[in-house]
């Protein structure tokens, strides 16, 4: 029942959050857009041009590919590991719930710390190479190598914990009853997994995956610390251009940012209907 | 703890609606009295309570407690406490702290408030649950705590919004008994919205709302004997409705001729028959007003109520049926033809102006009495 006067109260309550978000995002996105087309130069007249995009174009293509590669690989691994972890924890007897403790330990770790940890683990001379007794020269270039292995590993590691927690939170309440009902209808363990548990977990898993994809697409510090100079993903390229001594690189930096925003928005817009449909199917 | 509550011509409309939720509502509740408010869904019962509570501000009219107007007074300062359909116990407080809430809100120290609360918890016979949490209680226990909590606010007026409708019948009966005890002990002025006519029968007076207007305000017996409109009759249940064609000196219906003082030519009326005032006799009995076929029956406690489909008469129009309450233990002769005898009827005439109804009260004993005006609240 809508409380009379509730409409206005609702708008008043929403106003501060909406105002702050709108101001910050429109100012930022607007500034980036205008800079990329030369309409917000640091000095000199504002002249519309696609110089920024054109100059950056070849690198933009490579960087976009790298970003998408990192995001896709990280999301895929995080989803698989996170979902598996959640499913395992859901089936564990309460006695063994301590298995979830490492999960809780990973969640509050900042990504930069995770990147540092991965560096110490995966680099030549790092802990893993010592455990396997492989010499530095023989150890594959996981950190700063041609493929962004360490970068993807860090994202997959941290975000698998995130996916697991999100899926657990959304399914643990309803699962016991639904599972019992399915059992009473003659469904075996595998059927329950496929027809009850997974569909129940699907909306949360999909939403979490989208969040992971968008985050890894736009993250700066992990690729900066664990990646190599070329190919670089979009955020690293943008920052490099932004802090370049050549001030003409500003529009290119902005163009890179616009590309990253564009890719994120497209990914979000493409995935949201699917998520909504999954949620509605329940 | 008893206030004198009055509503004067209260009007209210929810925003973006095209009809008033309350229209010219005038009601009075004397100190320590219990007023039951009944009516079909959407009639404005809950709106009425919320206006009295101060949760809604009326567009027109006046709400008074004693001699002061409540219109500008915030809900928490009116001396009015309200109990809702859901118990709404505060989940983070134990039972005793729940009951003590009003005192704490008034600034009393916790220990004193809890001590006073124990007394109210005793009244509802739940003293041993003082330290329990709301989630550990059953539905009936929750409502009892809610009642104790509302009383502990020591209100001048107690508002109850269908507080027992979610309980099963046995529990409801327990709560009715409890309410009687509470009224005997504290005598609060109470307004209770209810769907349950047994609950309404507990009240001193009953107000019937329909489409935002008070259609009748009287004690329950008067309501049954002289419902002011068809809506009231339908709400109470147990009335049969027959079409009455105006003829010289009265109306003709399937049960024969009903004398009435001023039948309006050309205006059909509705003849209402109480099921207790009809009886089933032999088909060929000369006292039978009409005869027909028993087509079905329903139960009302130990009695059966037979539905008799009456034989068509020239003035009755399409099939008419009448409900007849049988004596206790007598089974309904379903499928048999019977005669029907009636000891009292009411005639309602829809008037030309805006749905108001005149009544013709007719006694078979010939004493007919006519009252053409709507019964207003007893002021």
């Amino acid at each position: 029942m809508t409380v009379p006067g509730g409409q206005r109260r609702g708008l008043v309550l929403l106003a501060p959050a909406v105002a702050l978000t709108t101001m910050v995002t429109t100012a930022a996105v607007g500034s980036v857009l205008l800079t990329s087309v030369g309409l917000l130069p640091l000095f000199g007249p504002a002249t519309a041009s696609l110089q920024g995009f054109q100059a950056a174009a070849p690198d933009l293509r490579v960087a976009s590919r790298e970003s998408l590669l990192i995001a896709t690989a990280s999301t895929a691994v995080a989803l698989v590991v996170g979902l598996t972890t959640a499913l395992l924890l859901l089936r564990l007897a309460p006695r063994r719930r301590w298995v979830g403790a490492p999960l809780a330990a990973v969640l509050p770790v900042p990504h930069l710390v995770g990147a540092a940890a991965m560096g110490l683990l995966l680099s030549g001379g790092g802990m893993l190479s010592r455990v396997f007794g492989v010499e530095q020269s023989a150890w594959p270039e996981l950190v700063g190598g041609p493929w962004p292995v360490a970068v993807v590993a860090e994202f997959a590691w941290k975000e698998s914990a995130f996916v697991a927690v999100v899926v657990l939170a959304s399914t643990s309440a309803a699962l016991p009853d639904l599972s019992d009902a399915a059992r009473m209808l003659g469904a075996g363990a595998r059927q329950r997994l496929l027809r009850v548990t997974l569909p129940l977990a699907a909306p949360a898993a999909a939403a979490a995956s989208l969040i992971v994809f968008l985050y890894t697409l736009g993250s700066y510090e992990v690729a900066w610390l664990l990646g190599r100079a070329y190919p670089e993903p979009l955020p690293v390229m943008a920052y490099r251009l932004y802090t370049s001594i050549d001030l003409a690189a500003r529009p290119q930096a902005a163009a890179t940012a616009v590309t990253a925003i564009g890719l994120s928005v497209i990914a979000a817009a493409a995935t949201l209907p699917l998520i909504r449909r999954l949620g509605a199917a329940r | 703890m008893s206030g004198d509550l009055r509503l004067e011509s209260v009007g209210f409309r929810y925003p973006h609606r095209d009809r008033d939720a309350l229209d010219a509502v005038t009601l009075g509740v004397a100190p320590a009295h219990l007023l039951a408010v009944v009516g079909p869904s959407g009639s404005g019962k809950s709106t009425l309570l919320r206006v009295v509570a101060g949760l809604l501000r009326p567009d027109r009219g006046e709400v008074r407690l004693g001699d002061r107007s409540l219109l500008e007074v915030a809900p928490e300062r009116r001396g009015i406490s309200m109990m809702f359909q859901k118990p709404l116990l505060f989940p983070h407080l134990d039972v005793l702290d729940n009951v003590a809430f009003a005192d704490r809100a008034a600034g009393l120290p916790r220990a004193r408030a809890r001590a006073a609360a124990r007394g109210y918890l005793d009244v509802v016979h739940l003293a041993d649950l003082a330290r329990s949490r709301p989630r550990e209680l059953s539905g009936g226990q929750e409502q009892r705590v809610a009642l104790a909590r509302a009383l502990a606010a020591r209100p001048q007026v107690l508002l109850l919004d269908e507080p027992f409708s979610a309980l099963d019948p046995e529990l409801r009966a327990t709560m009715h008994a409890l309410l009687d005890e509470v009224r005997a002990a504290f005598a609060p002025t109470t307004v209770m919205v209810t769907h349950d006519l047994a609950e309404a029968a507990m009240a001193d007076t009953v107000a019937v709302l329909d489409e935002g207007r008070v259609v009748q305000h009287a004690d329950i017996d008067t309501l049954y004997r002289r419902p002011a409109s068809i809506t009231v009759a339908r709400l109470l249940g147990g009335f049969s409705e027959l079409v009455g064609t105006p003829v010289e000196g009265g109306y003709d219906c399937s049960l024969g001729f009903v004398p009435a003082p001023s039948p309006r030519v050309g205006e059909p009326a509705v003849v209402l028959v109480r099921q207790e005032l009809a009886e089933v006799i032999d088909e060929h009995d000369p006292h039978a007003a009409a005869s027909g076929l028993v087509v079905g029956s329903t139960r009302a406690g130990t009695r059966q109520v037979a539905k008799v489909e009456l034989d068509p008469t020239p003035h009755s129009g399409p099939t008419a049926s009448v409900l007849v309450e049988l004596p206790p233990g007598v089974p309904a002769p379903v499928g048999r033809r019977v005669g029907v005898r009636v000891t009292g009827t009411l005639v309602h005439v829809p008037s030309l102006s805006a749905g108001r109804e005149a009544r013709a009260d007719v006694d078979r004993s010939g004493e007919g009495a006519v009252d053409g005006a709507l019964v207003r609240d007893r002021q």
Partner: protein
Amino acid sequence: MSTRRAALGQALAAVPLVVWFALPLAPIVLWAVAAQWAWPAVLPQRWGLTGWREAGAAGLPSAMARSTLLGLAVACLATPLGAMAGRALGWRLTRHSGAASLVLLAPIAIPPFAVATGLDTLVLRARLPGSLAVVLVLSVFALPYTTYILRAAHTATDPDLELQARMLGAAPRYVLRSITIPVLRPALVTAAAMAFLVGWSDYVVTLVLGGGRLVTAPMLLASSASGTGNEPLVAAISVASILPLLAVVAGGVLVRRGRRAGRREVPA
């Protein structure tokens, strides 16, 4: 019999998962207490607190203090704003829930580096203090989480509870103190913790908008980690960045377990 096999299967499956989550933390924990750990040793050759001494010299305590303040500032801004928005959305107080939700969730689709570089010159021209800009931007990135958490909490809470409180004589401010906040407390704490984490962990926004003067723990970590041979220092800063948060999480779990045990002892 099959349950025994299932239990064994679960135990076997659990091991790699525990390793997956715990393993990356091992090197920083070990390096944080290592005075010497040369290749190819699997465990440190000499234990010691070299890293912590270096971290102290590099300014870790003040960096952590700044990180804490930043986290608190973001929590103090994003939690009440998210709570109000969550109330309006969770209780469906307005017809514009859909549009508002979209706006409040939008920052998830905008990379922080883009926002930071986009706002940088504007902030400078407006002469806004860098730290203020950082707090505002990070709050916007924390809002989707705080709003979501509090919207869920409000959906699970009956709005009539507050109505009932007023109908027992409680003034609006007392209702806030005695009903609203206590009932929502778990969600408020979780939301504040998430917002704090956003502020505590951030790197790129602090880097760009902080003007280089806002040296938080991540900034310190970045400058150490990008060099070579700094393993103990990097490890010490890393552990320092995780320990407080872990303590809070562990404390929260213990408190909840203690409360649950305490409740069982109350006689029915």
